[in-house]
Each structure stands twice: as C-alpha cells, then as structure tokens.
C-alpha cells in the first residue's frame, strides 16, 4: 500500500493540533505521510482532508506498518493506551508534552527524574525513542519553516540514546524546514520539555545548541 521509498515515508500517530501540523509540513516536504487518530481511519478522514491534504488517514496499526519513522503525537495521558511492542524496531519521535493541568496529575510523569521521554521509552522498550518536535507551539512550527540556508531559519533539537535514530530524526527536522540540533542522549530531552530552557521560544541553531548544553551542566 505504501508508495515512495521507505526513507520517504513518515507515519504519524495522533491527529490533533501537533499531528496534523507535522503531517502538513511533511507532505510539503515530499514525504509519503500516513496518519492515525484513535479508532477507525474514517473518523479522521475529513480532518486530514482539510488540515493535511495529501496525507493518508489510516488506522494506527497501518500507520506503523507504513513507515519506519513514526511521530507520536497523542495527548500525553493517552500513550499508555498503545501496546508495549506496537513500535518494535521503529524510530519513534516523542512529540508529546506533559501538562498536569490538561493531562491530570500523573505521578510517574511528574517525577520522571530523567525526563518524560524516558518514561515513554520504558513503555515501548522495543522502540528507538527520540525526543523532538515538541518544543515549538504548533503555530510557530507552521509559520517558521524555511528552506535550508534561508535567513532567520530557526532550529529544533532532538535527543536520544540510539544515535543512528537521532541522525534520522535530524534529517527529518531539516527536511521539515528547521536547522537540526543534536541535544545528546534521551535524558537531555528534559531541556526540551515544558519548564525547560528552550521550550516555546524560537531559537537559531547556535542559540539552541548553547541552551541545550547549558541545561545539561549541573548547577
């Protein structure tokens, strides 16, 4: 069912604000994009048609089969609805943010001494988890995309322990229209979370690289 080369395929699990914004950007960047919400593909067909034309609405299982690179963008309080081995061997971009005020008090995520992505990684032990695409609001993400080398291009960081997976995500970031910054291991993804130093603001690659490295130095 998939067309395109494997490297040009992207799967997105979650058809909310972030999921559809990433889908739109990825279609424009030439990816063969499949996206799922909860339940049957029909439920999100109209949303995808209007908000991310060119992407294909599928079920979550089909999205996982479609691509080796998957963006996970469901509400944080719903990721445990997904099976532990759903993403076996896949690169999973954790684009989720934990908001106690909208996700409810979640003890494990609140404490998460090494960041919420390590909790996600523990839930999906067979997945190659990379934290990224979460630290810009969806509107900024949408508006700030620029071709490589364009003046004023801002950056998005990625953090993960699987270095090859991080490399793949850095290429995705660049193709989506941002300079890509390697933030280090998965624990360094804490810098990208709400309350982290880089959250919400648009930084150049140099600024972002500095902020991310500052964050990891114990104070």
């Amino acid at each position, binding site marked *: 069912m998939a067309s395109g080369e494997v490297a040009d395929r992207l799967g997105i699990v979650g058809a909310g*604000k972030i999921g559809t914004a990433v889908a739109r950007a990825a279609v424009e960047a030439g990816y063969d994009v499949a996206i799922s919400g909860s339940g049957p593909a029909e439920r999100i067909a109209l949303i995808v048609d*209007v908000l991310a034309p060119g992407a294909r609405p599928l079920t979550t299982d089909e999205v996982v089969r479609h691509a080796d690179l998957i963006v996970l963008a469901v509400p944080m309080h719903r990721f445990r609805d997904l099976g532990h081995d759903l993403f076996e061997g896949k690169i999973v971009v954790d684009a989720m943010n934990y908001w106690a005020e909208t996700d409810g008090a979640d003890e494990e995520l609140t404490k998460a001494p090494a960041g919420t992505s390590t909790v996600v990684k523990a839930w999906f032990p067979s997945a190659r988890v990379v934290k990224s695409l979460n630290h810009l609001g969806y509107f900024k993400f949408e508006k700030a995309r620029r071709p490589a080398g364009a003046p004023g291009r801002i950056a998005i960081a990625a953090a993960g322990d699987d270095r090859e997976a991080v490399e793949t995500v850095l290429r995705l970031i660049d193709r989506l229209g941002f300079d890509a910054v390697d933030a280090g291991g998965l624990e360094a993804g804490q810098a990208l979370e709400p309350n982290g130093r880089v959250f919400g603001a648009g930084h150049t690659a140099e600024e972002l690289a500095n902020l991310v490295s500052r964050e990891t130095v114990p104070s």
Partner: protein
Amino acid sequence: MASQEIEFGLDSFVPLSVDESGQELSGDAVIRNTVEEAVLADQVGIDSFNIAEHYRQDMMDSAGSIILATIAGRTSRIRLGTAVTVLSTQDPVRVYTEFATLDAVSNGRAQLIAGRGSLIESFPLFGYDLTDYEELFEEKLDLLTRLLRDQPVTWSGKFRSPLTNQYLSPPLPEGHLPVWVGVGGSPQSVIRAARYGLPLMLAVIGGPPVRFAPLVELYKRALEKYGYPELKIGMHSHGFVARTDEEAFETQWPHWAHVFEGAAAERGWARPTKARFQAEIDEGSLYLGSVETVATKIAWVIRLLGLSRFDLAYATGRVPHRQKMETIEMYGREVIPRVRELLAEPADEPAPADQSPATANAGASSG
C-alpha cells in the same frame, strides 16, 4: 453576514481583584461587583454577558447560574449565558433545569457554551477520571441536546442513570437556550460541534487568530458532510479598552503579567515580558487599546474568520472594578457601534498576507 446581526458579548471569569489602592477584595465583594458590571453592560447596549466555570482560588465563577439569575432580575435586554459550562463534569439534567429556569426568569435570555474545559480541576473535584474526558463530553453533550430537542427523553449512558420517558420542567419554548460548543483548537472537537449541528465558539487566548482559519474551514466542511446548513461561528478573546493605547497598556500590563507569572510557574509557559504583551496586542489575541484600536482589530478578525459573535473577556486578572466599568462603558457605547460602522464599509481587497490588523487597516485608520 450583515453587521447588525453580529452578537457582541462580554465574558467574565469573576476574577479576584484589587481595589485602586491595591488592596485585595474579598470573593463575595467581587461577585457583587460582577453583577454591577453586567447591569452596566445591559445599559450600554452590549448583547450578552457570559460567566465561565472554574474551581480555583483566584476565580469566583464556580456557580455562574446564580450570578446570572441575579443579573436577570436587574436587567431587561442583555442575553445571559456561560462563557463555558464544563459539561464533562456536570449532570446535563441539572444543567437543563438550571438554565431553563434562568431562561424563564430572564424572559428568554439564557444561552450556553458547552466545552470540555481547558483546565481540569473539576475532574478530581467531582470524582471524574480525566482519562474519560472524551467519552464524558460526548455522552453529556448527547444527553443535553436530547433534553433540549426532544422531550420526553429515553436515554441510557455510561456515566449516569438511564432516563425513561423523562420530561423536565420548566419546558423551554422552541428555539430557546441556544447551546454553542466551545473549542480550543482540537480538530476532533470541531468535528463534534458539526456532528451535533451546534454553533461553534472558538476560544482564542493567545497567538495570531489566523491559525484558527483552517478549523473554520474544517467546521464548514463537516457541517456539509453531516447535512446541516451553515451555522454561526463565534470567538472569545481577552481585551481591555481605555481612552488611549498607552493608558490601556499601562493599566492592563501589571495584571496580565501577574496572571502569566502564575501560568509560567504552573504550566511551564514562557515568562511574561512587555515585548510578548505588545506582540499579543499587535498581532496576537489581545484586543487592547483605545476605542479605535480595539474596534479596528475586532472588525478585522470578524472579517478574517467570518464570525457572527465576538465575546470580549474584559480585563485579564486583578484589574480594579472601576477600570472594568470604564472598559464596559466604552466597549458598549463606542467600540461596538464603531465595529458595526467598519463592517458596513466595503472590505478592502485582502492583502496577500492579511494576517495582522495593522496591515489590513493601514489605509483606514488615518481618520
């Protein structure tokens, strides 16, 4: 949409406020002040006054229907509603009885916005599980619309006891108690509003309003899909009116900063700065400034998104009562008539990047 048909409302969270010496007022005094604000809104020609629902120490809007009933007894014209009813954690039967009664005492002036709520303090408070969020809202909206549209109701669901041939009193005359669905940006919520054939209320509390344009398109397409005619679309945003842009800025800034300092600590948002405040005024979702500035921006956003209703959440945070009264007076007597005037003028050709009120009205604001 003829400009005369557009509804201009005010929204209040009944926030704890200070008096002009900076002394914090008690909650009960704030509630009585809010009643006075609504009475003034009625006198100066504002179309509706709407109260939100929170269970927080800094907001006194936990039982809006009682405040609205009090306002009903002191006004004759203004529509009275909720800026959001957090339907997920309410019993639709109780919502019906309270607001049908409000409709009776106000002689047909009650209205509702049903939302899931962006904050979630009501879930633990009333014993609901946040993971049921979607299901709760869906089920309760289903029951509420049934109660409004086809009594007697026979209904069963997961979260309350079933109803069999149930009539509720007081009965509502045909077309009374309009219910809007409030959404904060979730595409699935937009689809739901269309599926129920209910008008859409966009809560746009930050950033450029143009980012809601795709959701407006989605709503229209979904209405078509479900076989409904075009329905109204409204928007709720924050703002403040004063004699000059500078005065509005200086009055609102410290209180806006106070609220967002709190949000930064609670929600991990970036800390407030004057630059961000100014950016929200210039191209974001604050309708703040002189009469002309605010009217120009409201007229612009009404055209941009094709709105039939604009609700101003007047004054953010602890702005004193006196200044809120002045804002209400100017909004009703000057801003709204000026918006209607601007909308009666033929629209300029939209600029290619017609995304900020300043550029859209560059030619119109010189007089």
